[in-house]
């Protein structure tokens, strides 16, 4: 995947976040290693090219936010708002992620190999999010489109006030939020889930048939035709 001949190393013992992000956006290189991130915020934000960025250590808030086209890997943990508002490309964290993974994401793929905490996939609008471990409370809150795959357990109030996203959970769900219900797992869902697991590189270990599906009961205010014209 990496073209090692053109890889550039950015050491954050010497460079500020701003310098690193400017270099990522303006340089002609296609592959980067970021060393010693030490929990810095806003790393690799706003990328808009098919770059390959490897963060070697823990990242702070909003890592790879607003990502388009780029592939960002964090070999460590990530703080709040990983890949928030991601449009395309992919973001992978090898450790755990804090709250609000993929918040408002419109597209692309976010993979967390460990656990993600509260509000994972909040207001997701088309992004696919795959969590290797557990998610905290209020995952997929007000989710509108896309898929959330949880290979472990989900905390309280999964899918609260959900619109149309697809939620797949392999382990236990502590409780479902308002208007979120379990739904039948039909062949089409198993196929789409298999494709998602394959895209995350997890399909050899984890079978799509072992998941349960959750989604919107479509009973809240917005789903009532009488309210369609309401401001």
């Amino acid at each position, binding site marked *: 995947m990496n073209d090692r001949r053109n890889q550039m190393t950015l050491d954050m013992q010497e460079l500020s976040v701003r310098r690193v992000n400017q270099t990522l956006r303006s340089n002609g290189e296609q592959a980067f290693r970021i060393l010693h991130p030490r929990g810095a915020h806003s790393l690799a934000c706003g990328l808009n090219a098919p770059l390959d960025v490897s963060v070697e*250590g823990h990242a702070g808030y909003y890592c790879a936010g607003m990502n388009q086209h780029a592939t960002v890997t964090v070999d460590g943990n990530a*703080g709040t708002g990983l890949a928030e508002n991601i449009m395309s490309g992919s973001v992978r964290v090898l450790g755990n992620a804090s709250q609000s993974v993929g918040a408002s994401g419109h597209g692309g793929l976010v993979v967390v190999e460990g656990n993600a905490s509260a509000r994972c996939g909040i207001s997701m609008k088309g992004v696919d999010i795959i969590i290797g471990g557990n998610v905290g409370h209020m995952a997929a809150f007000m989710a509108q489109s896309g898929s959330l795959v949880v290979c472990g357990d989900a905390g309280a109030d999964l899918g609260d006030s959900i619109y149309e996203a697809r939620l797949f959970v392999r382990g236990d769900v502590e409780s479902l939020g308002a208007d979120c219900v379990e739904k039948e797992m039909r062949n089409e869902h198993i196929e789409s889930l298999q494709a998602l697991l394959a895209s995350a590189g997890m399909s050899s270990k984890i079978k799509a048939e072992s998941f349960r599906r959750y989604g919107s009961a479509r009973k809240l205010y917005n789903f009532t035709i009488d309210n369609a014209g309401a401001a």
Partner: protein
Amino acid sequence: MCGITGLFLKRPELRNELGLWSARMLHEMRDRGPDSAGFVVYGEPVAGAKLTLLSETGTVDWGELFASLKSALGVEMSYQTIEDHAVFEFEKDVAADAREWILANAPDVIVSSAGKSMEVFKGVGDPAEVGKRFGLESRTGTHAITHTRMATESAVIIRGSHPFSTGRDTCLVHNGSLSNHNQLRRFLQLQGESFQTENDSEVAAGYLSWRMGQGDNLDAALEHAIEDLDGFYTFAIGSLDGFAVVRDPIACKPAVIAETDDWVAMASEFRAIAVLPDARNANIWEPEPSRVYSWHQTQ
């Protein structure tokens, strides 16, 4: 927004590093709370008692106060001053009487701590400068908590700076804001608790103080706090032999905990933990909502 750090050392041979490591952690949390800062250090306990005092106006004559208090209590004492703070040390455990006497006779003085081990220092302005002014780097001990404040519920004055004392050798720092603090303050005042500020976090401290006065241990007092406090909070609480962390039921405010064989650390953000030795190999997790985490010295 505010910043919190807590550091608890597991091995006695690391105690000389406590201040230096805590200062580095505090430095990383400057952006989260540039208004003011404070810290508590738990050093070697004294046989008698000690009080950390703070003069809000900076006009207190510590020598005069010391002499008056000494003649009122009739016990051997010593004192040292640092900037607008003073630490009074007593040969016998007269912490409660000394505190009461000062509150009654020295209205300009805030009693920031009372007990055997803890010393609290706080100030307005750049947190790193506050740390320097009070010599955080060179302090030694078993555990320490620091706080950087971005004010929301009350004014940027030294009285509003954390940590807030919650009783003998216990104190609290807070990131968040409470919504039922006025009602709770009135209730606690009726129970006999006294408050020195309009600050919401001081109410949380007073609440714990009241609960522990009713016989709760620290963990039980925190379990009750989850029921009775309304609002957003991550609290770090220091006690004579350890520290505790608790987050509100929806975990609004951030917190990260990391643990190695040598130390346990908590901070609002990971970057404050990243400065510790061996942080890369630490076990790192986010505390769950409504769950009390605590560590205590085993020796």
